[in-house]
């Protein structure tokens, strides 16, 4: 038995000692916990931690196999994301007890706060006292047992799992329904209660998902698709895109869901030009050799930074939206090019981990595929708040793509139209976010950079929160970014342009004098090295490529990513379709494309008179349109649109 006194050591030191003791197989006793947060997070050994008093937020969070015993109360997020293992709490638990658990047994002898078991996947959460508002909110699986009062809206928007209620039912949540219990289930509950020595002889009611909201009532009519390149044509009015939109709505009677991004013309990087005539500059035979491009991202607060051979990353895209093979190809290419890949939502595969030399692991509100073991083998952790194509919305994965295998990885029922939660269970404000970031850092020993993915909305406010909350870098995503599935109107009208996003972010950080305290990776419709350089000139520390990498790897931009029958094998989970995708061949194509980006960045940087990509600045740019000038504050020089005139003058 190892004893740790938290009145003598910090939680950070305490957790290091707990993990070290756990690795050696020793049980641990924690004295003077005094409701401190993050006790025991990241523990992955089958030992018992006894907390002599009350614990704060995320007791036992992000752990596996360990057992926790708490004498009195715990705060929010008890047993967050626990795989196997158990927790017994002698007193009460705060909100979201058992959030996102994937197998753990969690027993609270007193009452539990609101939204208990939110997005849980597997395991048992038992409350011997009363539950509170929306227990079982958005749960995907597992079992909640409540012996006292149900609280309001029990089982709100649950999509799987079961809730057994021994006390009075206050009210049922949306899409939850009562059903009959089976004797075997009740016997199993009795055995569970006996195991944890909880006397209860009453009967149980059972609440499950009613299944009314899990699927769109009418599927979209298959149409002969118009490629994105036609779809985003010049006319904003009765073009083919509008016609197609109207036609589909006439069949399904609701908004349409499609892949790719907004097709509306909004100011973009192409509305900027370089101040110097880069075509006329002498760049020599090998600009790549002449220009310093190595970029470190994520190290400003002491974590081990990502080391990029050029200021470029792969944008987050999920295994789920994309096939395993497509993700593998991107991972291989990222490794070959010496840049970082990102898992997106939905978990990490071995193939991806092995192929990518540097991999950022992304955490979303549904905690789909999120777990301590993959965190430990990641090179960076990322909290997704939103994405540029659909800020404020969670991911959407249509039933066709939610295969058995994919459902298993994510811990959700197969075959549902998965609409991932748009918000995190434990991040309801900047104050909660601080505690969440610290949980991730505590669980991984402060080794990894922690970034935030922000879809551009209220960037002026959001970026200030990002820096104040201590993120190492932000992945800033404008509305020109794509998605595997999103509401068409959302993609066209909700986000703000990439150009606005970076300029607002720079201004907001300058206004509080904190620009040096966070790094910015800009993404959202960055197509090539030319766009990349413009993004860097506007202030980004690096840029990320998503759609262009996919296209380089064979995407035909048919916008049917959401359907799940991608003919190229990229955006599908159907083995028959995926078979067509040759990961190794496409990896080479993606890599070759990335090398073209490298050359362009180097050539333009050199042509602009610099020796390092870090020297790029706003002084290298002008605006070609009044709108772009207004957004960026760059000098408006429309004459640059006319290259002949420019050359004649220059």
């Amino acid at each position, binding site marked *: 038995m190892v004893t740790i006194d938290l009145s003598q050591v910090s939680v950070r030191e305490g957790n290091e000692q707990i993990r070290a003791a756990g690795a050696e197989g020793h049980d641990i006793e924690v004295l003077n916990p*005094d409701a401190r947060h993050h006790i025991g997070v990241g523990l992955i050994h089958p030992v018992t931690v006894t907390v002599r*008093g009350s614990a704060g*937020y995320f007791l036992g969070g992000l752990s596996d196999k360990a057992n926790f015993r708490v004498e009195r109360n715990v705060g929010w997020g008890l047993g967050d994301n626990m795989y196997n293992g158990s927790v017994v709490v002698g007193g009460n638990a705060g909100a979201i007890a058992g959030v996102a658990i994937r197998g753990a047994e969690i027993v609270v002898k007193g009452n539990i706060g609101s939204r208990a078991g939110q997005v849980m996947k597997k395991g048992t959460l038992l409350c011997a006292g009363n539950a509170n508002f929306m227990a079982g909110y958005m749960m995907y699986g597992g079992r909640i047992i409540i012996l006292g009062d149900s609280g309001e809206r029990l089982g709100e928007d649950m999509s799987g799992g079961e809730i057994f209620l021994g006390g009075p039912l206050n009210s049922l949540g949306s899409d939850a329904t009562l059903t009959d219990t089976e004797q075997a289930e009740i016997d199993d509950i009795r055995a569970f209660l006996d195991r944890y020595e909880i006397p209860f002889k009453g009967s149980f009611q059972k609440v499950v998902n009613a299944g009314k909201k899990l699927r769109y009532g009418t599927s979209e009519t298959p149409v002969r698709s118009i490629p994105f390149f036609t779809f985003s044509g010049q006319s904003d009015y009765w073009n083919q895109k509008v016609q197609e939109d109207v036609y589909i709505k006439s069949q399904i009677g609701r908004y349409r869901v499609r892949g790719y991004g907004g097709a509306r013309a909004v100011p973009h990087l192409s509305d900027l030009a370089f101040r110097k005539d880069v075509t006329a500059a002498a760049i020599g035979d090998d600009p790549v050799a002449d220009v310093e491009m190595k970029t470190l991202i994520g190290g400003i607060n002491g974590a081990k930074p990502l080391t990029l051979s050029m200021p470029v990353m792969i944008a987050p895209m999920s295994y789920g939206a994309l096939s395993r093979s497509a993700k593998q190809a991107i991972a291989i290419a990222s490794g070959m090019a010496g840049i970082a890949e990102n898992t997106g939502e939905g978990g990490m595969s071995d193939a991806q981990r092995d192929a990518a030399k540097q991999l950022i692991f992304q955490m979303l509100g549904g905690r789909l595929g999120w777990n301590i073991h993959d965190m430990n083998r990641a090179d960076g952790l990322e909290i997704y708040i939103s994405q540029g194509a659909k800020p404020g919305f969670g991911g959407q994965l249509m039933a066709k793509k939610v295969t058995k295998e994919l459902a298993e990885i994510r811990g959700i029922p197969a075959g549902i139209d998965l609409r991932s939660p748009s918000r995190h269970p434990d991040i309801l*404000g900047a*104050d909660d976010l601080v505690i969440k970031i610290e949980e991730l850092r505590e669980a991984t020993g402060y080794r990894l950079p922690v970034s935030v993915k922000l879809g551009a909305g209220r960037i002026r*406010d959001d970026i200030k*929160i990002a820096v104040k909350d201590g993120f190492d870098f932000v992945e800033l995503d404008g509305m020109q970014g794509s998605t595997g599935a999103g509401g068409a109107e959302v993609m066209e009208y909700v986000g703000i342009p990439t150009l606005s996003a970076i300029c607002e972010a720079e201004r907001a950080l300058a206004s509080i004098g904190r620009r040096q305290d966070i790094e910015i990776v800009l993404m959202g419709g960055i197509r090539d090295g030319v766009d990349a350089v413009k993004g860097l000139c506007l202030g980004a520390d690096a840029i990320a490529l998503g759609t262009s990498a996919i296209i380089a790897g064979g995407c035909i931009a048919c916008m049917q990513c959401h359907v799940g029958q991608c003919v190229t094998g990229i955006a599908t989970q159907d083995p028959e379709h995926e078979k067509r995708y040759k990961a190794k061949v496409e990896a080479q194509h993606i890599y070759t494309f990335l090398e073209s980006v490298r050359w362009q960045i180097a050539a333009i940087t050199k042509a602009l008179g610099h020796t390092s990509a870090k020297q790029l600045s706003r002084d290298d740019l002008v605006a070609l349109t009044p709108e772009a000038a207004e957004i960026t504050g760059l000098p408006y020089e429309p004459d640059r649109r006319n290259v002949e005139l420019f050359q004649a003058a220059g």
Partner: protein
Amino acid sequence: MCGIAGILFKHMDIDRDTGKALIDMLDGCQHRGPDSTGFALYGDDHPGQIKMRFYVGTGNEAGDAIGRLREVFAEQGAELVEDSQIGSAYRAVVKFSGDLQKFSYAVEHAAKVMSIGESLEIVKDIGTAHDVDDGYDIHHFRGTHGLGHVRLATESDVKPEAGHPFWATGFSDVAIVHNGQITNYWKMRRRLERRGFEFVTDNDSELIAVYLADKMSQGVPLKEALRTSIDDMDGTFSFLVSTKDEIGYAKDHLAAKPMIMFENDDLIAIASEEVSLNRLFPGKALDTREPPPGSYNTWSRST
């Protein structure tokens, strides 16, 4: 975005370590808001006298503001008993028996009012609880009850006057600390403005304070005002309110903002996180309660 704390010693003894207790509680949840910290403190009172606290800045700016304030005191028939300048604040005790609401609107044009009351004094500035204590000597403050707040500025600037607690502009001794966001802010504010109330900030917490104080001035008990506030305010909120003799809380129906409380014969303490409550009782496991969604309550000092 923030952390809140409140404490009330139940008995009439005014000589309690209120300042130190609040510093400890706020230090416990400083991670929730590193930008600024504030205290609403209730000390002794003298009949006929009111205590006023203003933000005046420093240097010439402060001198000018204090000059303007002294003129307004004279114009309004307030007799200055004592005054002092502490940090960027100016504290004045005056004898005044007229219409406090009019008086407070008048002084607001001379300098930013932080609080007015017979026993209330609000102290807030940028920095942590210990920073503010260093500047304003909070830990020596003896009193009966108080509120505290740590702030992470999201939408508005990091300025002392934008921090919490908020005084219910125009109403003696009413203060509030709030964690959350009132989404029908402008609708509610316009409703109160039509009835002649003035707002000195665009902060939704000031709105809650004025809303409650207005109800109380019409004879509605604080507890009843808290009950109606839960239905009248839209958004996510957990807030604490204090008057000369009472402390109360309200929590919205969605329970999105944390709150936890501990009560014994001697005191009631409420905070965003149990870690703050535990600071008052190191090494002890407390029998705490989390108020349910849509709930409210008040406690008052007893004899």
